[in-house]
């Protein structure tokens, strides 16, 4: 008998993008109010809050984030702050599972455009100091990963060409999805030529359209004890598993660099915990900070065989029907546009990924609603902190 750890009864988010006119408090307030509204509860109903932001302390010199929320909402309940939405989500879910709280708000926010001039230095230094000292950039490790992949699997000649096209098509696909997502940062479609030309003009293997943008934004959701979830909504979404794993901070020091060990471990544990097989998952939000990461995540999570994802993708995307055909299996990936086009406000990103899977499971995604054969029962959310340093996988299911 499958048992939910906790239940999502409401979700909310802001549009991702450049919110030059808004403070971090404004953003989280907006997302939080939407989530409270969608669950039909008031803030006094909350037992606790779990927040996340990756580096508001650096970008906005914010000290105690929780204090802003207390002042804004006039509530004095326990609040905690984590680094990623997934981390806040896991901790909130654990507390509910332990019986400590019944209703918890999980919220994430990031305000990256307030520090645009220094943001890449900050991001890199936080990702790994020694790589930063050596001249690495937030983009460079993605390209190194691509090189490691090509070398490990001996991809050469035309195959490299096809791999590069497959990666470009991921961007085209994610932008196409984002054009149907009113919250997305980049709501315009891009062409294959556009993606390839950006690489050519930069004389780089991955170009502007291969990477997620720098975004502001906030997301929130309401987690409830499964026993009381039905009191608030007819369509609670169950958290069937939530797991994570950790890897070295310095990417070059890792033993296997053609993928992320943390993602593999997290997914294996998540499936085992949810008592599901990979075949049961029809939709996955994967952490596509770059097109390369979307591809490699399909392998790390077990959707594609190792060394094969680029072939699956190349074939699927040549004549795209909205889903990946993974050797006969159907998988919808990043239907909100992914980090690539929906946006990537770090501390809020995981919330947007959960937001999408929840709405897809509820059948509330409008024109980008997916309808796989046999119905949509389970979805998977995959979030990463750093460059594969931490990976989280949550499996959500319909009641």
């Amino acid at each position: 008998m499958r048992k939910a750890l906790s239940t999502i009864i409401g979700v909310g988010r802001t549009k991702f993008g450049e919110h030059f006119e808004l403070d971090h408090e404004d953003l989280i307030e907006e997302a939080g109010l939407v989530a409270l509204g969608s669950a039909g509860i008031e803030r006094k109903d909350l037992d606790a809050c779990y927040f996340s932001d990756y580096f508001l302390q650096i970008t906005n010199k914010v000290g105690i984030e929780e204090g802003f929320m207390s002042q804004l909402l006039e509530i004095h309940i326990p609040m905690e702050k984590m680094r990623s939405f997934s981390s806040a989500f896991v901790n909130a879910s654990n507390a509910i599972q332990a019986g400590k709280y019944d209703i918890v708000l999980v919220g994430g926010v990031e305000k990256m455009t307030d520090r645009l001039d220094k943001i890449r230095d900050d991001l890199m230094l936080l990702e790994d100091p020694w790589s930063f000292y050596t001249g690495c950039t937030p983009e460079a490790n993605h390209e190194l990963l691509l090189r490691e992949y090509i070398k490990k699997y001996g991809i050469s000649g035309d195959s490299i060409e096809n791999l590069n096209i497959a990666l470009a098509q991921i961007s085209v696909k994610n932008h196409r999805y984002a054009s149907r997502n009113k919250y997305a940062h980049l709501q315009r479609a891009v062409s294959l030529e556009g993606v390839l030309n950006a690489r050519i003009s930069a004389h780089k293997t991955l170009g502007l359209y291969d990477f997620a943008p720098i975004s502001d934004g906030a997301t929130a959701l309401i987690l409830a004890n499964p026993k009381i979830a039905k009191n608030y909504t007819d369509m609670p979404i169950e958290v069937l598993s939530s797991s994570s794993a950790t890897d070295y901070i310095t990417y070059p020091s890792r033993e296997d660099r053609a993928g992320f060990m943390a993602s593999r471990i997290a997914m294996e544990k998540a499936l085992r915990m949810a008592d599901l097989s990979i075949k049961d998952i029809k939709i996955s939000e994967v952490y596509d900070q770059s097109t390369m990461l979307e591809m490699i995540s399909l392998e790390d999570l077990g959707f594609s065989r190792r060394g094969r994802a680029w072939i699956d993708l190349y074939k699927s995307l040549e004549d795209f029907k909205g889903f990946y055909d993974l050797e006969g299996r159907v998988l919808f990936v990043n239907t909100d546009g992914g980090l690539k086009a929906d946006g990537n406000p770090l501390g809020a990103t995981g919330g947007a990924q959960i937001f999408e899977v929840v709405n897809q499971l509820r059948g509330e995604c409008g024109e980008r609603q997916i309808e796989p054969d046999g119905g949509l029962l389970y979805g998977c959310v995959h979030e990463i902190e750093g460059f594969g340093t931490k990976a989280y996988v949550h499996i959500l299911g319909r009641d």
Partner: protein
Amino acid sequence: MSSEPIERRVTYIGDRLKGSRCLICGREYFKIRRYCGVCGRKSFDRMEDMDLFYEKGVLEACTVIREPTNKFRKIGSYIYGLVSFHNGKVRVPGRLTDLILKDDKDVDPANFEDREVAPRFRRRYAVEKDEIIPTISLTFTFADEYYPHQEYKITKPKKVYENPGIVGYGVYTSRFRIKEGMMERSVPFIDEDAITAAVEAGKMAFIYSGVDHSQVGKVYVGSESNPYAVNPIASKVAQVLKIGEEERSEGIQGADAIDTEFACKAATSVFKDAMTLVYYPKTPTKYAMVIGADNSQAASREEPGGELDFFVGFGGSAFIFGMEDVIAEIEGWYSCSSDTPDFWRRDLEPYPRHGGRFTGEPAYFKHIVKAGRKLMEKLNLKPGDIDYFVCHQPTPTWPTKAAADLGFKQEQCILGLQVAKLGNTYSCSSPLGLAAILDKAEPHRRIMVVSYGSGAGSDAYSFITTSQIKEKQNNQKFTVEYQAQNKYLEYVDYATYRRFKEGL
């Protein structure tokens, strides 16, 4: 990074690429660790120190960086990747240096991958002018190009000499040149300065001599382009090259380190101090090292002092003095000085000024000729008794004229004359000429070296080579001639030369 304690810790590890090896399972780590991640608690106190400073790595995978983070912006495009050592037992991130990549050209990483690389000691990235200058050795160049990878093998001395003398030496000039007319000059890459040149020269001296670094009791660094007004180059050299007995737990080297300054004779002045130190019977100082290193400064051509801009070079030379396995014994010396202000740089001024024609006859020539004559008188020598003569080389013509004034013939001077190939390397200039002679000299030859430092003074030394010089000459691939005439040299235009000299 504006935190000095962080800077100290990063530098302590990163300059020397210090790591640890588990004595139980053999696993290796970059950065010092107290226990092995695999063996756990039982490996406490079973970890041995290792470092990658003299090692050779392999660039396993790389990518080109066109848009660096802010701190690396001045470098422009560069190759970043991961470098493995010891057959993949340990991997580190790395940046390729000494490489100018054009922004409008494709770079295929495959052309760089799987090639052997050697760590280089460089500035890490740009900081504000009032901050500590960050350095690191996670910068690499190809081991089979301009800078060859060479092993450092400590050798046991075979013979004790009666007189102190030169035990080993090393010269470092960069792979970039500016060529104007007949003259070529060494140009630093943008991440180099007098500090990095001093360390590289010292490294070369250890490779040449096989001297045990822990036996060196004192290091002197003479320079007039130390990027700091206060903070020695010598302490950095001592730490990076592990000079003297290491007090490991505190990260201290048991050696004296001192910077000296006297325009272009800052290094040669203390040759005699180093030799008397190793000769003094009551102290256990086995070796002393003297380094002259300069990123020779010059105002740009349209400004006062800009005449220097036609002649300045970049380089470091290091000499180890001792009593054992000497390659050139000291015969005698003479130094002179006078209050002649022919070339100077006031504090806080970036570039030196000089007294035009006043720097010639009453300054340069007067002191060099005086010192050279006096030493010959003292030792009862005639110019014909001296096989090789070398003096300070600010331009190609002056040292030739000074040598002629002293009665030397062209063939006695030709080996030491390097200014036309490498430029005026200031404190490194006459030592570099001496090194060029030692690179080729036969045993039992007499060498006279006369330095000149503005302000003003000269040091004259007479050395006689020993029979051991021949065997040691084989220890060094990176000779002066190799550096002066190398197929991997890259010639840069005037604007690049100025930008590189200005540095990060």
